[in-house]
């Protein structure tokens, strides 16, 4: 009986996740002009990314520019399905500051556009700036880092980027 228990304990101790989930690092460069008015970032993944004009996309809210069906449904860390992932700015100490955002089930596939929008602190949030990167492929492994730059939108956009 003792041996059986020992075997069970050994087997149980070997259980558990051993492979790390997919990673998708994002390096975000924010222009100084945006620092005082930022409240959150909003991450959207759009299908058929190569058909998007990334320069035009950055001038206004993405939700007003593409059909809702083109947004890849994302599941936040709690498992809630959302069209865009919104995360409040909460910088850790350090240089550069980092923030970990979790996604459930990173959508895999090809030809996406990653749009990151800076949301203002206003009572009715407005789009302060936006970045747009074309992603050839998202895989279940370690995806290459995306470098995104957000600059203060000039002229400012009046739209509310939230869905």
């Amino acid at each position, binding site marked *: 009986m003792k041996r059986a228990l020992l075997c069970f304990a050994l087997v149980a101790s070997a*259980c*558990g*996740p*051993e*492979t*790390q*989930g*997919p*990673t*998708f*690092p*994002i*390096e*975000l*460069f*924010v*222009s*100084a002009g*945006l*620092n005082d008015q930022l409240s959150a*970032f909003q*991450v959207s993944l759009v*299908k*058929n990314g*190569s*058909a998007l004009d990334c320069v035009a996309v950055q001038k206004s809210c993405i939700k007003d520019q593409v*059909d809702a*069906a*083109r947004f*890849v*449904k994302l599941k936040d*860390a709690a498992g809630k399905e959302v069209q865009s992932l919104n*995360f409040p*700015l909460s*910088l850790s100490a350090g*240089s*550069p*500051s*980092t*923030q*970990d*955002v*979790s*996604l*459930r*089930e*990173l*959508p*895999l*596939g*090809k*030809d996406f556009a990653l749009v990151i929008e800076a949301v203002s602190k206003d009572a009715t949030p407005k789009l302060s700036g936006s970045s747009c990167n074309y992603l050839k492929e998202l895989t279940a492994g370690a995806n290459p880092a995306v470098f995104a730059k957000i600059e203060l939108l000039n002229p400012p956009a009046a739209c509310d980027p939230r869905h």
Partner: protein
Amino acid sequence: MMMTRRVKPGVVGPRSVRVLTASIWCLAMIAHAEPGAALDAPRVLASGQVVPRNEAVQKAAQQVDEGDFEDAIRTVEKGIEQPDLTDDQLAELYRLMGLSHLYLGNEDKARDAFEKLLQARPDYELPRSAPPKIRALYARIKDDIRKRRVRPVTLTVTPVTEAAGDAAVVVEASIDDMALGAKAKLFYRRAGAQSFSSIDFARGKVRSEYSATVPAFEVPAEEQSYEVEYFVEVADAAQRRLAGRGDPYNPLTFRVAAKKSAAAPVAEATPIYKSPWLWIGLGLGAAAATTGIVLLATGNQTATLPVKIQIEGQP
């Protein structure tokens, strides 16, 4: 007109022949000279694209540099037979073949080679330093090719008629005479959606076999079945449609099956616990539950998006 087989300056012979051969060699060197074309480094095309190393490409380039145009053609012909050439290497081989024929005065053969090259790189131009005569000849060939009809590509698509939801859908196609630089794409959308998404076809182990996979999240199983419209298009580098099955206005379709509803109750003639199906079902259920628990315990479905934020002007 056939010229000398090996043309190098300094070849002993009548003065006129020496002058002619030296001139041709110089022209070849000028026309062929491109930045970064050292033989021990990857070749850089005029477009700035780096061609990965390949023995045949390097040897043929050296032969062209040295004016051994006929040897270069032989090297290219052998090199083209290699099974694992990339499109860039193949394009570079055709470029060298075209140049060699151009300098040998074989306009028709140069045209054939440049036709293949221009399929991959419609904007390819000779270096500006190339002599006007050669440039004029190349311009004429390019103009002729533009006016001619594109080579037909044979495309056979294995139609998909039905798909189970929540599972990737693989569309298979057989493509013969695929033009260099051409790409096959699968366009798809849920019937009624505004725009099509697209995915490139990938070549299989057999050269003419291709497949494209619609990701599972694009075809979720729902309460009601629904249709997905799709079409396949082969286009060359200049985005000319070489072949296709269906188009945006007349797409092919497949149906995504609805979620399976719970099984209807079975009329009982005998007590349920005597039914072998009950015990088989319970057994299968237990096995599925165990598998599910193991998968949940060992799988990690959460993806991490580490976001590094650098604010300008801050350390």
